[in-house]
């Protein structure tokens, strides 16, 4: 018996090594659907994610926000669970927790449930994606919910600030970075529009099924085939080709005031690399962001530890269609001008020898490796994370990410700063209260820009929608989106 156990342990160790550094498996099903499995038996749960390469980027000017509305409709009735009552009952029966999210470049629907219900969970997701009813009556009700979600966003002091930034950068194509969309479009959406979106983006060839947690891989493949086989990509389907964004505008700026803002938000936005076109350009930028976060580094010492700003940093958002770089700070109003001036001036220092050092680079790489390990420690979250990378960059990028990060040298970081930030066009923006603006001598320059770029967000018609009457069926109280 002892000998048998030793042999089994040896086999296990060989098996683990053979799996290499890739923690998950992938395969493409006959229908074109990508199947990703991340096996972890630490708790008896599975998380099932359906991801689509869709979002604001696959919308048009007259369908902006409808992918998000579709996300809400995903959790409504389908052919097997024909009404909301049946849908909710099934959720309770299976002990499901669920949600979804829609962004510029990806849509994710996800459920977590006890692993004994893996098959039921797969069937649940297959029915929802392949046979949604998308009934007009349900949509009438759900879009009022979506509009309230929109209103909650609009209640935040930075809502107009971010919309103005986006629209100044992307001009008439700004809506392709705005998954929340426009209230009038949501108000007037039709079933036909949602059906069109279904055939354009919610097809197997454009989607992935990702499962993380407590399952046996061979079972998963069989069950996925069993339940998703009838979900087909329409004949002649081709992925949508989003138009290229206009050239990043020449350096410009604005100051916006909003009454309730307390601390000043200072931001400079630059054009960054698009990950599917320029993957190699992304690694030094990610390293740079971490170097600037390093608490022993000059940047952190100068801006954060000194008390000059409450927070300050650099971010690069990995995206395939656009890649914004932000240099930002939040500071006390009295320091607004000083922080903004010093923040932009500091960029010149980043390319000087000695600003970053080799030890910091080692720390940053170790930190990014440990971060990956921690990510995988939570199968529920990790599988959602994988869904993001599948949709936005492709999993090859994710697989080779740490290897590529390890190759980055300080001179690569400096070269990246020169290419993407130093002397590059940028949009400088400041958000603060009117009183603070007056006190520090800043003038709100946003009204004419808002008139030009934000008018489309005002929609008195949304207030006029008739109250929905109570249907016979019921919906989930959870909050997808």
């Amino acid at each position, binding site marked *: 018996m002892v000998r048998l*156990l030793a042999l*089994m*342990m040896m086999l*296990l160790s060989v098996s683990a090594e053979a799996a290499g550094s890739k923690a998950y498996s992938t395969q493409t099903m006959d229908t074109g659907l990508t199947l990703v499995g991340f096996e972890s*038996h*630490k*708790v*008896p*749960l599975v998380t099932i994610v359906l991801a689509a390469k869709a979002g604001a980027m696959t919308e048009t000017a007259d369908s902006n926000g409808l992918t998000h509305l579709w996300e809400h409709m995903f959790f409504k009735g389908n052919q097997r669970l024909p009404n*909301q009552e049946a849908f*909710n009952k099934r959720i*309770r*029966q299976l*002990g*499901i*927790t669920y949600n979804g999210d829609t962004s510029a470049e990806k849509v994710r629907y996800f459920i*977590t449930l*006890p*692993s*004994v219900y893996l098959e039921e969970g797969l069937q649940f997701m297959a029915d929802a994606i392949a046979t949604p009813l998308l009934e007009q009556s349900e949509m*009438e*009700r*759900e879009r*009022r*919910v979506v509009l*309230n*979600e*929109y*209103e*909650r966003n609009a*209640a935040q*002091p930075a809502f107009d600030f971010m919309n103005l930034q986006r629209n100044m950068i992307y001009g008439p194509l700004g809506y392709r970075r705005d998954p929340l969309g426009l209230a009038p479009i949501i108000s007037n959406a039709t079933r036909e529009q949602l059906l069109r979106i279904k055939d354009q983006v919610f097809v197997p060839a454009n989607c992935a099924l990702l499962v993380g947690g*407590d399952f*046996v891989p*061979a079972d998963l493949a069989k069950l996925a085939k069993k339940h998703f086989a009838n979900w087909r990509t329409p004949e002649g389907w081709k992925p949508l080709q989003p138009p290229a964004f206009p050239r990043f505008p020449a350096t410009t700026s604005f100051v916006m005031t909003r009454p*309730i*803002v*307390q*601390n000043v938000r200072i931001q400079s936005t630059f054009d960054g690399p698009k990950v599917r076109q320029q993957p190699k350009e992304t690694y030094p930028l990610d390293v740079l962001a971490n170097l600037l976060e390093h*608490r*022993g580094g000059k940047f952190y010492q100068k801006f954060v*530890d000194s*008390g000059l700003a409450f927070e300050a940093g650099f971010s690069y958002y990995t995206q395939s269609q656009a890649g914004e770089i932000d240099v930002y700070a939040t500071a*006390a109003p009295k320091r607004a001008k000083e922080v903004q001036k010093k923040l932009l001036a500091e960029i010149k220092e980043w390319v000087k020898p000695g600003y970053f050092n080799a030890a*910091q680079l080692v*720390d940053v790489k*170790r*930190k990014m490796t440990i971060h990956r390990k921690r990510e995988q*420690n939570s*199968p*529920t979250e990790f599988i959602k994370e994988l869904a993001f990378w599948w949709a936005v960059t492709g999993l090859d990028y994710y697989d080779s990410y740490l290897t590529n990060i390890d190759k980055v040298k300080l001179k690569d970081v400096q070269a990246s700063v020169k290419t993407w930030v130093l002397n590059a066009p940028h949009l400088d923006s400041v958000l603060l209260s009117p009183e603070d603006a007056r006190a520090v001598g800043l003038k709100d320059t946003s009204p004419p820009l808002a008139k030009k770029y934000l008018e489309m967000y005002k929609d008195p018609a949304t*207030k006029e929608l008739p*109250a929905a009457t*109570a*249907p016979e069926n*019921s*919906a*989930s*109280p959870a*909050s997808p989106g």
Partner: protein
Amino acid sequence: MKYQWLNLSLAIKCLLSGALSCVTAPLAVAAEQLVSDASIKIQKDLTSRHHLKNGMSVIVRQIPDSDIVQLGVTFSSGLKDLSPGRKVLNEWLWTALPMAGKGYPKRKVYQLTEQYSLDLACSGGIEYAACGLGTLNEYWPKALPLMAALLTEPSFTPEDVALTRERIEAELKDTPSNPGSYVNEIVNSIFYRPGHPYRLNHDEALKELDGLGRDDLIKLHKEILTADKLHIVVVTSMPAAKVVADLNQAFGGVKASNAPVVEVTAPEFDAAKAYAFYDRELPTAYIRMKMNAPGIHDEDSVAMRLLYEILSEELGEEIRTKRSLSYAVHAFLIEYNIGVGVINVSTSKPEATLAAIQDVLSTVKSKTYSDEELAEFKRGFATSYYLTQETHASLAGALAASEVFYGDFNEYYDMPRRLDKVTPADIKRLANKWLSNLRIGVIAGRQQFKDEWALDLIKQTAAKD
């Protein structure tokens, strides 16, 4: 052949790791008992209690197949233990404390946390404060002495005190900017009367800040650093004996002092002071309601959790699904030594929404749920129970809370068995006993909201006795 190998592989992994998934109840019984007795037993067997030389209790939970380690140190002292005038120290202390300690000036703290990517943070809560250290086994020998120095001999340098004070002041001033969180403060202003141990609004905190300084931080730290108020939880693959030996070095010198315990009483209801309105033009009104609930030690505690799960689902069904009045409506239960029930909603149709809430409260009080319906509501708890155990940090947090409130980690593990015993009659009884005497806070434009809508709901739901 491949299928057989995979099952064999799984069997070996179970054998080696003690993974909970290996003892998931078979499908036949899964419908009624998703968290099996065997699963609970495995968890208990992987958890052990130890004592340091000063008597301090240490819980070690083994996760055999991982090199991640999570240390949680909990201080049974929070906002409730501070007298008015000192309450803001609760946040300030835990912001300033991790910055430097004896033998670890700030530069060294920064160097070590960056070098080993240590996840080290503290936060002060209402009933207790918690500090966490997340690291890998190989960095444990460097990380633990650092953590111990910060917690037991913090420096509170004048520079750090000033820096953290300015940050807290900025955060406090910023409180009203997010209506979603500010509405909590609005309702708290009437739920907790001045002098209640749980009360601290941002304007009061700002005033307190003016009269406090470094000496107050040092004094408070001395008060709470006492072995009888400290609990340690470690989630790790390292042998318990090694962990305990290391912890003895790190924390075994902390003295006990039998510090007094502050008793907390449930907030009293006064219909004349049960409504607060804050005028701000917003696209949607934010409404938050609070009501009393039994505390965590009450025998109905677990049944109350289920009641609030049911209430949340019923509110969502009526308000979001059937009437499309809100994107975000939910109810939840806060469980401390006293309990607090919360209903939260944002809506551009507040009158209709408040009427719907009244309907739902009436329904939940009058309805007798069937055994099958109740079983369905219970099933979601199995998922959240295991989700808590997925990461070292969340498991350490759950065990620490169980230790603080019950003095026994087994209370956390046994929760599914207590839930099994809750009956439809319990739900109806508790709904009628506790879903009343609402206090309502509202943020909305003055033209958007009429006071009588809230006052009427308060009147309709006031307890009859």
